[in-house]
């Protein structure tokens, strides 16, 4: 048993349906996204949700013993411990030269909080701030996180021209 060849059809701006032909018997298929098992199904299709401009590695196996290829996520998850007195945490990202508030997470008594970023641009430095705010609205000193996203690059656009005299094709990216 091995990896299953799949096709994909975009069903909405953010969703794709991947399918792999006609289901035969009760074979269970294992769907991996970016190297992680995201679902098991006996159907012959599976819906995958992606963010705008996000590309993911999709692999389907018909044997749970098969291992997916190594893949790297384009997201960063920031984790932090709770702070006594905080009622919420505000996450900001440095976008276009400004700190932009992008998430607010309420303190619900947990010890640990985390937040998952959007699909980040490749080979680019991204900056985040996490600030805790108490019930008086007073902000604490923010934590600063700077990360360089190193992920699989976006698929390049290319075109091909052909010179009939030299019989050379040129790939332009």
């Amino acid at each position: 048993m091995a990896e299953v060849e799949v096709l994909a059809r975009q069903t909405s701006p953010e969703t794709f349906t991947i399918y792999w032909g006609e289901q035969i018997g009760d074979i269970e298929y294992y769907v991996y996204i970016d190297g992680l098992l995201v679902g098991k199904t006996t159907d012959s299709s599976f819906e995958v949700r992606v963010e705008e401009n996000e590309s993911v590695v999709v692999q389907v196996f018909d044997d749970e013993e098969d291992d997916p290829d190594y893949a790297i996520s384009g997201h960063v998850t920031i984790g932090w411990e709770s702070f006594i007195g905080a009622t919420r945490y505000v996450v900001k990202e440095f976008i276009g030269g400004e700190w932009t508030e992008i998430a607010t997470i309420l303190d619900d008594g947990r010890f640990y909080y985390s937040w998952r970023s959007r699909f980040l641009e490749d080979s680019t430095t991204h900056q985040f701030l996490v600030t805790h705010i108490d019930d008086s609205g007073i902000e604490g000193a923010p934590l600063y996180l700077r990360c360089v996203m190193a992920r699989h690059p976006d698929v390049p656009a290319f075109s091909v021209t052909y010179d009939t005299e030299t019989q050379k094709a040129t790939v332009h990216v």
Partner: protein
Amino acid sequence: MYSDPIRGYLGGASVDGAGQHDPIASVGGFCSSVPCEGLSARRSGLLFGVSIDYAACANGVGTGMLEAISGNVLRWTPPGGAAGDSVTVMNGETADICGSDPSKFVTVTRKSSMNMVGIDQVFLAEQYNNVVSMDDVPTELQADGGITYSTLFLRNVGAVDISGFVVWPKQPNVRVGVDLPIVALSNALPEEPPISVTWSTGNDESGGVVIPKIPNGFSVPVWIERTIESQAQASPCERVDVEYKHGAPPLPAVDTSGITITEAGCGGGGYKNFRFSYYSSSTGRESQAGPILKSPDVVSSGFYINNIPFSSDPIVDKVKVYATPYQYKDGGEMALDSIVDNIDAGGGKLAPVLSWEQGPSGPAFVEYLADWTEYNGCFSGLYRVENEELVGYRLYLGIDGAPDFTQEAHAVFTGESYEIDGISEDAEYHVVVRARNKYGLESQNTKAEILRFGATKPTAPELLKVGNDANGNPVISGIYNAIPDKQDRADTFLVYLDSTGAEPNPETDAPVHTLSMLNAPIDVLQNAVIPVALPDGAVIKSVIRASNTAGDDPIDSDSSDVITHTISTIGADRPRGHGFYSRIKSQARTAQGWNFEQQVFDADKGILFDPNIGVVDFWCGVDLVWRCVWDSGNADSCKIYMPSDWGLRGRPLVAGVGNASPVEVAAWEESDKTVYITIYSGMERCIKLDVIEKVMYASFTQLREHVNYTARTPVYQRADSVAFQIFDPSSEDWVTYAEANGGSFCMNCPMSQRLTQEEILSL
């Protein structure tokens, strides 16, 4: 706890530098660190933040499932068994999660306060606590047909069933137990008789067994059966796959003198005792690990590694980082399993992916990249090697088929273009370009661009019909439908006409007109007016071609079939049409009720047809006119003819000469003196009326009379012609169609004279 299934490792790193589990501890032999009383568990899945400490033997061998029911609740389904009760496990807690049979359980420890999400597949295998080591003895190497062979030297094969027995790394020769007699060892499949071998017991290099000739790169299955003196039965036969990879010169060791590690964060644990080795993915070889880089203390889970030097060997593409993870517990350090990280290497500096600065007060980051995947025991995503020289593209090329991505790329280039030489114009090229960033990561594959180079002609268009407008300009309709996945994308229609009686010759003639395609690869010419006014009666022969003008030299398709048309400019203009339809409408208002099946049509009756494919307004009164909905996408099924021989007036109207098949009437209703009849779609357009004779005769006569009477009608008229109004759903317009040649009426020939739907309704 993650335990490896039994594996064979190539010992003697100092000889070959080949891959091994632990370069320091392995020299001289391997031992397992796995206690034997439970099953080994190998996990795959999304569930993280929880470890499996123990898997009860009662679970049996197979795949179970550990799933998070909610953020703090786990459930266990043993292999082949049923799920047990859900168990709440909070951060830091250890709990037994049982299947429906309480003896089948796993012991887990929650190691994160993050909500648990997902499912892990847990493969459980029997633990024999065996270690198979393989020596690459230089004197045994042979060259035979270009394949390098080595011997398999097995040692330390044993089975221990002592509960709680643990063998730690770095103490390979400390084995508790007895000499383990090997009763049989086979290198064949288990159903074949075992091959007796000579076995020397012992734990040093003098012990073991030699199996000659393992080809380089091959994996050899070895089946091992053991008997322990204290047990009556032999253990199950266990398969061990031992792979031999030979590499000639050893990879150089990593010079760690310049490497520094800087702490980048804090957390509940960290790492120390870093070691580094170079690794070649293509050969599977790994250098001898350098000396342990003593870090002053446990480095937190976020850290930078700087200044790893370039490898002088170009085949090196990774640096393996070994470290011992620690976590603080009860105020002290507790060693966990070793970790290994593979870092793409091109030399240079390991760029920190993440860094942080903690504020004077506030929450502390505890993990910086929780998205990392615990995959095959390796961390990923913490750091990468940054090397601008890696930036570029990889071109994968398949000829008459998809590229083979398991092979090297056709080309690697760093500029904005790359030339492919030696193009065959007979072949189909499948092109995929991957981008590569400075971290050595490549973009994903997409569907290959399928190209055919050279003078590939576009698909020939089809010329559907030719008519003319009132000014004598030819009016043509045609379609270009490119063959899918062919590089013949035409962008222009070429029109050739000849009014001398000869057929146009596109090879020598210039096109009289060109029309750009707007919707290639499928484009339609719909009633395109060709501005070459011709006199009434001129006979023209027309063909069209499709042309690809994108290149320096346009490439034309073959010609369509030739259509001959006679120009006729007789007709009236739109204002006069208004009067014509006005009269028809007024006549319709005078219609009386009648029985469709019995009534003989006469001057004061009217009917209206509505086939599914379109509405046919069939008005019958003093004058008769047709109003149809004509489906231009299904033109062949919508032609409505009248018999040319008036002696056959008793025959119904048929769709095609001689075809008298009746149309089935699906429904009809009478409303406001008008009968609506629905005719099944998908059938030949045949209209059968019991009183067709009257209809035909009276209609035609009356219409002719009407046409003659209203000499200024908008409709096309000649000696044998009348007019029809047809609604074309494609254009959403009513079109006056008419043609009568030899006494027959053809409804699929458009005229230029039109009334809009609004104009019709305003009459």
